[in-house]
């Protein structure tokens, strides 16, 4: 990594278990990990769910560029963590001297813009079943063809839970559970504890397209 010595005034250290920021807290800083691992969690129902574990040189909390938006997850130091902390006002100073970091942030933003646009497309569908189907199309587009060899033609496997799908579809879990049950009865999906299998992704594409207003 580039020389970050000049940025010691942005340096912060967190002890194991220490919260860097909490879900729902308004945030104006984002972080570049220099050392140690950071656990990203969300409390769903009555369970603290791990969303991700990040390490150097990853960036997190970048949605802080949105004014007043509450944090969407909690960041907790998993071990002793060293980060550089930035905000909207000072990030340019850092970026000027560190094109690698600027490029990394640029990539994070492209991903977030896409995620949000895609989310918008899902939310504007009126039919709740189509929303759910579209969540799987989105997942298929973003997770790409990693397990292509294991895939059997149009079949797709997603490491998601009903809660995840509900979150993306902007619906409540109970409703998503019911509607996924309908899909399962029609043999269009298979539901497992830790994953959901879509039997024919093209069937979902046709279904969503037929429900999307032109």
């Amino acid at each position, binding site marked *: 990594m580039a020389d970050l010595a000049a940025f010691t005034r942005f340096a912060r250290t967190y002890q194991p278990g220490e919260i860097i920021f909490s879900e729902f807290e308004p945030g104006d800083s984002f972080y570049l990990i220099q050392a140690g691992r950071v656990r990203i969690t969300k409390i769903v129902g009555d369970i603290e769910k791990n969303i991700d574990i990040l390490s150097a040189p990853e960036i997190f909390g970048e949605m802080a*560029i*949105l004014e007043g938006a509450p944090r969407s997850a909690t960041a907790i130091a998993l071990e002793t963590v060293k980060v550089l902390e930035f905000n909207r006002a000072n990030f340019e100073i850092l970026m000027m001297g560190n094109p690698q970091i600027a490029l990394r942030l*640029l990539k994070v933003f492209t991903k977030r813009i896409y995620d949000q646009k895609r989310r918008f497309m899902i939310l504007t569908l009126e039919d709740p079943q189509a929303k759910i189907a579209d969540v799987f199309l989105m997942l298929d587009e973003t997770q790409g063809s990693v397990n292509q060899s294991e895939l059997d033609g149009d079949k797709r496997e997603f490491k998601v839970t009903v809660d995840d799908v509900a979150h993306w579809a902007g619906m409540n879990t109970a409703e998503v559970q019911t509607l996924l049950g309908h899909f399962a009865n029609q043999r269009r999906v298979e539901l497992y504890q830790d994953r959901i299998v879509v039997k024919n992704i093209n069937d979902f594409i046709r279904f969503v397209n037929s429900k999307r207003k032109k």
Partner: protein
Amino acid sequence: MPKVGTYRANSVIYFQGDQGDRIFVLQSGRVSLNYNDIETGKLIREIIQTGEFFGVKSALGRYPREENAVVLADANVLAFTVPEFEAFSMSNTRIIIKMLKVFSNQLRHIHKQVENLMENPTAVNAEMGLFKTGEYYLRNRMYSQARYVLSRYLTYYPAGKMAELSGRYLEMAETALAKYGDGKGPAPLAGSRAPSPMQGAPDFDANEGGPSSSSAPRLAKVSEGASLSDVAKEYYDAVSLFSQEKYQDAAKKFKAIVENGDESEYVGKAQFDLGRCLFALSQWDLAIKHFTGIVQSAPKHPDMADILFIMGQSWEKKGDKAKAKAFFSKVLSMPGDEDSSARIKAKKAFNALGGA
């Protein structure tokens, strides 16, 4: 090395939906990016200026192209692969910063559009969410995490709905942390995991294992919380149940507070929250009846705008659009804060029903 490509007028550099790993710079000629606006569906034509980059997001983010790049007049275009672009950007930080600014504005814009679609009266708002997170950590004996979250709550919402209870919880977390350490000690709240030999919630004394002196100013606030009256305790327990989406249980507790009717402050609050429970339980008729009662008995209720809004929503759920609209327009005609959340929501709901 990036390659120069020559394109004739009316040809297409890439189509929407293509997977592409090239980033382009227009050197000469005219190129337009055509796409449909995601909100209105209207066709947008964005003319690329000479020297401008395009196709950046989809190439860097590895997702399908989002527009058709159409050549309007014979054009020379420089095409970078992603690694070439990365190498180029290392010595052209200003270009990256410029793109960062454009992208962060786009992100803000689309985020706002998504937020607008997500509005939901029963959704947990940030204030309740933050409180709930702190409560979760306390319940699970993660005292230092609870301490962080609850003190954040008190920083951001010093006069918030849950401020008193947060103060009380914060003190419990600090006491337990000093006395037992993280992950240890008896269950601090009902519903804590791994039941300990001691039953029920222990009575924490503010003087026991006192917190460090650095938190002294906070303590003054905390001790207020510690002297919560019984009805306040009941009320906050009910709010906590509501935030956990246990609407049946919450409704029972709110109802008990209303029926006891001793401290008017909490009775009024509980009355409003009982109506919200009924709405959350899809009991539209009961919710309407209940709120009608409040409107008649307490026309100056502080939550009147929200009450009328939820009544409108209940009518809408029942399929009576005319009544729903009448209630939404009542909210809009109320004097007061133009930007109150009830007004914003009512305006949206009103327009969604076809406006005036």
